[in-house]
């Protein structure tokens, strides 16, 4: 470790309650400007203050390219207002969270829930996250994020490769929704999926007495089977195992979150389902949820406000189930997008595809604060985009090593210095 890009751990001038929260978690507190912290040699991962292992991991992919600059807003930076014009978040609406190198930062006004979690020391904000030489295609950029392979052609996702390396138990990873994101598809294994339509209710079809028994017989893989037929069979076999268990979990009365149907696909629904499964005690190590589109090329203000409000309510509701770290119920939620938006607004009151963005990690076992250097608003890359200051694979390295208990280089194909966002 210790060779990669500039690294900052900045816990900032928070309100009194937040300071108490941070102190309680044993966070280093550096009031004021903290450029010096960035120059300190990175340390190895500190022992966990809570003594509770982090996990499960919950990956939330926000598709379309979330506007990082309007999510964690450098609101007092004059360049920001010049670049964003009418799209700039007004200073009196920003939820102030701290100061880095003399610049004040705050959450978008829709993020009230995340703001209180931040004040409780449970939100890590990582700035300037992307990969070298950013690609501005949704699909190529998302593929790179989901595969952790810079060519985007790996054909297997990063969680999928973890699945490949750890056996065949279909419970290890669950993704909510009818189709499976590339992150959860391996070369040999893939995650199971769950229905996110709570009005439909059931994860399992009616058995009709004998039906599922013969269904299993039909789906059981056999030697010499053609590959696609085998995949059909595996999806059926996994349904029988995982669907039944998930249905039991979701129907259990002891489980707290009240599933209110917000419509299929809604992030609130998806996270409610995950909360119920974790609370029930399913042995799943990695969950996947996803939502979008954050592709705000036009009339961004209202759309983005609505998206963030909905996301914020979902996250707050989810985290409300896990106020403190408990063994096996210490979820680490990661919120990421394939890229951010361009620093300057376009003529449609929107923003086009950009490069780096912010990543959030949220949970009772997260060490709240700022990580990574916020990109400059006066020096851009050759295409006028925000500089990349943090390689996204460093976040994956932490998750793989600390939550999924696997050698990160084995999955990532190289060494990336982890970021110490877990307490």
């Amino acid at each position: 470790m210790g060779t990669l890009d500039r690294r900052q751990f900045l816990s900032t001038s928070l309100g009194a309650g937040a300071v108490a929260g941070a102190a309680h978690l044993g966070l280093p507190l550096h009031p004021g400007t903290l450029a010096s912290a960035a120059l300190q040699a990175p340390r190895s991962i500190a022992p966990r203050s809570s003594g509770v292992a982090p996990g499960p991991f919950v990956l939330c992919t926000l598709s379309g390219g979330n506007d990082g600059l309007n999510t964690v807003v450098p609101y007092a930076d004059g360049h920001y207002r010049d670049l964003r014009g009418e799209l700039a978040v007004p200073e009196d609406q920003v939820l102030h969270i701290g100061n880095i190198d003399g610049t004040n930062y705050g959450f978008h006004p829709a993020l009230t829930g995340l703001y209180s979690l931040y004040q409780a020391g449970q939100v890590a904000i990582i700035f300037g996250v992307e990969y070298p030489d950013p690609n501005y295609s949704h699909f190529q950029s998302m593929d790179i994020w989901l595969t952790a392979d810079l060519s985007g052609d790996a054909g297997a996702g990063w969680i999928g490769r973890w699945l490949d390396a750890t056996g065949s138990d279909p419970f290890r990873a669950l993704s909510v929704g009818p189709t499976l994101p590339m992150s959860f598809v391996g070369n040999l294994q893939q995650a199971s999926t769950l229905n996110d339509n709570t009005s439909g209710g059931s994860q399992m079809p009616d058995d009709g007495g004998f039906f599922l028994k013969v269904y299993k017989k039909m789906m059981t893989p056999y030697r010499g089977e053609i590959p696609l037929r085998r995949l059909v069979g595996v999806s059926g076999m996994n349904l029988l195992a995982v669907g039944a268990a998930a249905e039991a979990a979701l129907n259990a009365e002891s489980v707290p979150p009240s599933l209110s149907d917000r419509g299929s696909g809604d992030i609130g629904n998806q996270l409610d389902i995950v909360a119920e499964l974790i609370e029930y005690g399913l042995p799943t190590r990695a969950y996947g949820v996803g939502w979008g589109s954050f592709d705000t090329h036009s009339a961004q203000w209202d759309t983005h406000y609505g998206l963030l409000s909905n996301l914020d309510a979902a996250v707050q509701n989810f985290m409300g189930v896990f106020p403190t770290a408990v063994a096996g119920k210490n979820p680490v939620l990661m919120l990421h997008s394939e890229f951010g938006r361009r620093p300057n607004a376009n003529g449609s009151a929107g923003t086009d595809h950009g490069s780096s963005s912010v990543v959030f990690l949220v949970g009772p076992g997260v060490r709240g604060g700022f990580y990574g250097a916020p990109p400059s608003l006066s020096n851009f890359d050759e295409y006028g985009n925000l500089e990349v200051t943090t390689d996204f694979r460093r976040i994956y390295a932490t998750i793989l090593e600390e939550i999924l208990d696997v050698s990160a280089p084995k999955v990532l194909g190289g060494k990336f210095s982890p970021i110490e966002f877990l307490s």
Partner: protein
Amino acid sequence: MGGSTGFATLRIDTTTICGKTCIVPTNPQLVAHLYRRAGFGLTNSELGALSQQSWTELVDGLLEGLTARDVEGDKVPLPHLTWIPEANVPGYNFNGWQENQDLITWWIARMVATSTPLREKLVLLLHNQFPTSWQKVGWASLMYAQNQLFRTLGPGNFQTLTLAVAQDPSMLIWLDTGTDHKDSPNANFARELMERFTMGAGHGHYTEDDVFESARCFTGWQLDYTSGEFYINPFDHDNGIKTFLGHRGNFSGEDIVRIVTSSKVSPSWVVSRIWSWLAYPVSQTNPVIAGLEGVYRRDLNMTDLLAAIFHHPKFVSAEALNGLVKQPIEYVVSVLRVLGLDTEVLPQGTLPYYLGQLGQVPFSPPNVGGWGQNEYWLTTTSASSYIQFAQDLASYADLTTIEDRNGHPSGQIEAVQELLAIESFSTQTYGALLSLAVQMKDDGGSWPAQQLVTLALVSPEFMLN
């Protein structure tokens, strides 16, 4: 592979495929394959009749349907749709959500009924080539208008089609072209035009500068919200000189569409997309694509390309025969067709509901990349949804031929196979069906037939396309 029952097992023999001199009858397995890919599958009686034709006759018949009147499809009544000018009348109230639901059901019904299956299949492929979503467009009428463009212009010149789609109101809304201004162009449409619609994102196809330069050319392309029509606002169009893909000039948006569709790399992208949906998934650089490009490049004509694909030896290779699972839309249409069900018998909203459960709602692709293939569809959730859908639909079907053989397990399975036009069951599937039939041997009524049909509809044999 397991053994098989029912149809005599025919060896897949590509020598039955020919240029102009043709062998009759055509191997029924290949006829079924052709119609699953070029359409939405065949019933058993349709299969019997078509096998009397040669491969060339079959392909020609499908191709003629690209421009012929769709006698049966045209009988499906179009639901009420509200057009932009109507909604401008004060006090006009419209239920956009319901119109979209009805439009989904309409298109599925059309795919089920069509006499010109290749054209309806092409419309579906083009929906995935230019994925546009009602979720943002908001007008079912505009989604319908785009769908009609695919139907009328799809079989012809791809450049003409691309330009029409680009200037169609649905696309102007979907990719924000209609909100563009000359002093700060919006790059959304310009980028996807190259990446998704015409060229592919391969290295060196275009640069970021090309994206921004072409975005300038589309400024002034607007949607008139009074008439609901496309127009070019000359005061909001950037008339400066642009540099694009090595060309320099005061290009218009039309010029850009012409340049990208006739670019050197475009044929490999378009051909690889169409081939991947009809034969098996390949990348833009696959050798089979290089072999087909020339035919398409000549006139950018879709009908020429389709003909070449169906006559390509690899179209009937083992790779192709085992190369695709049904997309949910194909699955739903196939089930309705083999069960002989009219969409009218289903409660309103049934089809949009199940398509949502299966993850593929027409007019609502997840994003401008469209839907994936194969693994993309094979999840535990969809496995469950397929069973629920099959169970539900089987309860509406006339299963007399299977019920008549209640108490005779092997006879019942034969009847299932005939009804669903499945060429052969694997030993494993046959064994499962048999144990289900034996278990229900003493049950009367429609229950055993429904259960058997459900199981067969979710068998790997039926799930593969």
